[in-house]
């Protein structure tokens, strides 16, 4: 219970120094106070399981995922959809169902944001009880859920599980 607030507090100090990007004695005194105000208000909500926040392995996986995502996944999708905009490639938009099997909120949100951030797929709606995303897909040549899952979600699946799940 107490560890949650400490995790949020430390993260807040880190964010403060990222934003101001200078280290003086004044900042070192002020940053814990600022971060404490935010942690007291929102601390109980932001982090639910503090042992995850303190594990460096998850942070390393997160960094590696960001690099992989920004350098490889995004540019290919960008070029594909850009050629659709310019009329060089055909498209067939439709809404398909994609199932997922995460338990934590952050894993669900991170996967949905990863899907939406790649041009060509948008999470339109989510059914948390039946564990389904409704994804608007620009290349929906098939409506088979298994194929759709393979094409849309499998790129992110193992990374997200390593970062946010148990």
């Amino acid at each position, binding site marked *: 219970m107490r560890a949650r607030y400490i995790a949020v507090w430390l993260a807040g100090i880190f964010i403060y120094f990222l934003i101001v*990007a200078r280290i003086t004695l004044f900042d070192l005194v002020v940053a814990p106070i600022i971060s404490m105000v935010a942690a007291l208000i929102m601390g109980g909500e932001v982090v639910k399981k503090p042992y995850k926040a303190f594990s460096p392995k998850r942070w390393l996986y997160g960094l590696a995922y960001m690099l992989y995502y920004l350098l490889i996944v995004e540019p290919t999708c960008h070029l594909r959809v*850009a050629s659709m*905009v310019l009329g060089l490639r055909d498209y067939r938009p439709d809404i398909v169902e994609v199932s997922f099997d995460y338990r934590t909120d952050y894993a669900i949100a991170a996967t949905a944001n990863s899907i939406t951030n790649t041009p060509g797929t*948008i999470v339109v709606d989510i059914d948390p009880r039946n564990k389904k995303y409704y994804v608007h897909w620009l290349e929906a040549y098939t409506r088979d859920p298994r194929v759709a899952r393979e094409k849309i979600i499998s790129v992110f699946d193992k990374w997200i599980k390593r970062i946010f799940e148990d």
Partner: protein
Amino acid sequence: MDLGGIVLSIIGGVIIFVGGLFDLIAALGVNRFPDFYTRLHAITIGTIGGAVYPIIGSAILVFGVPGLSLGVRLSFALPMLVIASLILITAPTGSHAVARAAYRSGLKPYRRVSEEVKK
């Protein structure tokens, strides 16, 4: 003027320029695509390729500008990385929120006319 600085500034500048091109393509796509959901895909190009990549590019460019101390360079680069990651988090959430509102209020996705006939 060292070689590394020149290389970094050229890489950053090229990324910024390509980001501008992506932005232009996205704006074209927003005007060319037939319905709301397909326009969202063009918007995604505009927010990721047209906003996140140029910001990272300018963070690289700052390290190539001659005559700055390391502290000043970090004062530019670190907030830029914060802005980039913020856009990575918030932009898809906003698109999702609007798409959900449109879907729930009964906006039908566009299909090609020929495919409707086939069914």
